[in-house]
């Protein structure tokens, strides 16, 4: 529909403008913690949108994406720990507290993890794929739990956020704007990706692997590439989260975190560009609003989730469009 096609970029720009204006407005309203909440939404939005690459566009239900999220976080944490102590990692990799070093490192390492896990997991499909990704995530979870040097079960405290040239990363608003800038860049890249030939092949694979194979496309390689890209995105989000919380813990890799990421994707709308971001926003706002009302907040989250799955057919984005009188 032409109206919605015209309307969407405007809507996206309006949201962006609101996000840019948020910190001063939140301060003026006496609600500065809104900025932190928005930062968390942006970070989880990146992670959920990354998961959506395999989940929505590729049709591969990964139940272990928290692994890459956590690996990204731990890369930042471990590099910081070695920077603080001065001992190089494995005896030759120096530690670092520079954002421009740690972020690419986190993306790289989580990409490598996704390459190994994806290469093995993609030999299966369906329920087995869901479970084998879960299994690998659990292995990494227990690995970090048993790493005594890096805090084990208690997690790794990062005393100061990473430094970046010309920026004062101790200031919370600066950290927020860094997250926002990275999120904008990420979604711009994702937009290019979604409209690329590669993504078309991926969506074709979801519908019929056999047909794509008949055209002579190597399905396995395409899926693996998508899995790795998705893992890198989740790793980026994890690295940002470690900087934002100044903390990395095995909790980031727990299977319930994988579940939460899936919930965000489904809440927002599977296979849509901005759906996961909307889903992250809804989930996090729900969680904190309900938690401040009642200690039984999980009951509310559960009931709303159930409602969304059973009745909205396509998450909040679809629901909003239907309420606005359009078909999703």
């Amino acid at each position, binding site marked *: 529909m032409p109206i919605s096609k015209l309307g969407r970029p405007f809507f996206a720009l309006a949201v962006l403008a609101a996000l840019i204006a948020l910190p001063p407005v939140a301060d003026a309203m006496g609600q500065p913690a809104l900025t932190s909440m928005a930062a968390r939404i942006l970070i989880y939005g990146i992670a959920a949108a990354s998961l959506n690459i395999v989940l929505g566009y590729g049709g591969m239900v990964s139940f272990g994406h928290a692994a890459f999220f956590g690996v990204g976080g731990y890369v930042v944490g471990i590099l910081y720990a070695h920077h603080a102590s001065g001992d190089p990692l494995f005896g030759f990799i120096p530690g670092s507290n520079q954002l421009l070093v740690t972020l690419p490192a986190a993306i790289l390492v989580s990409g490598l993890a996704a390459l190994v896990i994806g290469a093995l997991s993609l030999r299966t499909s369906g329920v087995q794929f869901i479970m084998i990704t879960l299994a690998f995530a659990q292995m990494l979870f227990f690995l970090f739990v048993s790493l005594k040097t890096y805090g084990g*079960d208690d997690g790794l405290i990062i005393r100061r956020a990473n430094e970046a040239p010309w920026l004062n990363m101790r200031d919370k608003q600066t950290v927020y704007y860094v997250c926002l800038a990275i999120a904008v860049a990420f979604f711009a890249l994702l937009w290019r990706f979604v409209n690329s030939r590669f993504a078309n092949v991926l969506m074709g694979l979801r519908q019929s692997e056999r047909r794509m194979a008949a055209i002579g496309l190597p399905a396995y390689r395409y899926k693996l590439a998508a899995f790795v890209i998705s893992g890198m995105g989740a790793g980026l989000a994890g690295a940002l989260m470690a900087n934002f919380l100044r903390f990395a*813990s095995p909790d980031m890799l727990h299977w319930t975190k994988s579940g939460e990421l899936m919930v965000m994707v489904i809440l927002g709308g599977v296979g849509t560009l901005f759906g996961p971001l909307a889903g992250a926003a809804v989930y996090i706002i729900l969680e904190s609003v309900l938690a401040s009302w009642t200690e039984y907040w999980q009951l509310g989250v559960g009931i709303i989730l159930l409602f969304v799955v059973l009745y909205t057919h396509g998450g909040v984005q679809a629901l909003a469009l239907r309420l606005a009188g359009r078909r999703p």
Partner: protein
Amino acid sequence: MNWRKLATASAITLAAASATQADEPVKIGMITTLSGPAGYLGQDIRDGFQLAIDAEGGTLGGVPVTMIVEDDALKPGNGRQIADRLLNNEGVKLFTGIVFSNVAGATLPDIIDNDAIYISPNAAPSNFAGSECHKNYFVVSWQNDSLHESAGQNATNLGYETAFVLAPNYQAGKDAIGGFKRFFKGEIVGEVYTRLDQTDFAAEMAQIRDAKPAVVFQFHPGGLGITFLRQYQQAGLLETTPMVVAEPSMDGVILNAVGEAAIGINVSSHWNADFDNEASKKFVAAWKEAYDRPITYYASQGYDTALAIASALKANGGNLDDLGPFREALRKADFQSVRGDFAFGPNQHPIQDWYALKVVAGEDGKPMLKTGERILEDHSDAYAAECSL
């Protein structure tokens, strides 16, 4: 300074002053664990704290207070997020409530570095007791290691020569075994780390039976402890091998759930429901009046934390704009603790006595914890010397 600036400045001063008037209650942020298997720990701390407020009719030390309770769900990230919101949006200056060391580790730095005070009613990990101690950080409960040091001393006093030790594989578990070994003079014949999510201890029971120790020391708080003890009994070990534990492995709830099987177990603690002092009797009576569930030492710590806050609020009239006098007053620990003698050491952790308790059959037939002799007197902790406050 022109008149406009002056007007603004005085308006701000007025606003600040009115905020500290007695009719504006002091906000106390309680971040605690209320959901999941360990939820009863946080619930008891909160309810113990509330008892002290209720006893004063909604005030602490004569100053009206409101308690903002939030559930961290045992997730360090949640704790941090809640602290951030309470600090910045609600302007909370006083925090308490955290049950678990890992949540404390993530949440504390944000609070104490941002000019707010944290008073721990439970967890006190070693890293904040030594060289990283902080003027805004107080502990009313105990330093983590002390719990298990008292158990080690208890085992030594009871004359056991060999011990088998078990704890979950996380920092507090390792601290537990470290603390026990520091004061146990005998030989360790087996050391096993369990999992925090473990539900079946049959494999460990077989190992204990095979090692034939004189005594078993174990640290399994909450539901884990119930499971462990029940299975220990079912494996027939309770008749052959005595057990020494610190209070987290034998709190009121665990005792209630395990029942008669617990009779004979040696516990060490800094407080027990049968303590013969006015403050403790008053607290126990108030608890029985208000709640229909077993009393735990967690509740006593919540209650004592509230008393400590009350003593400081009373001394400075509830003014938290300048934390200096508040800290000064708090450090004096001018309150009647339910555990008797209580003082803060140089690292603002407790100096207190530890007692040997034993599970015995009570008059009504139900098992109860009976206080025996004092194990450690005016005990501080192993890290106080490293702190320079």
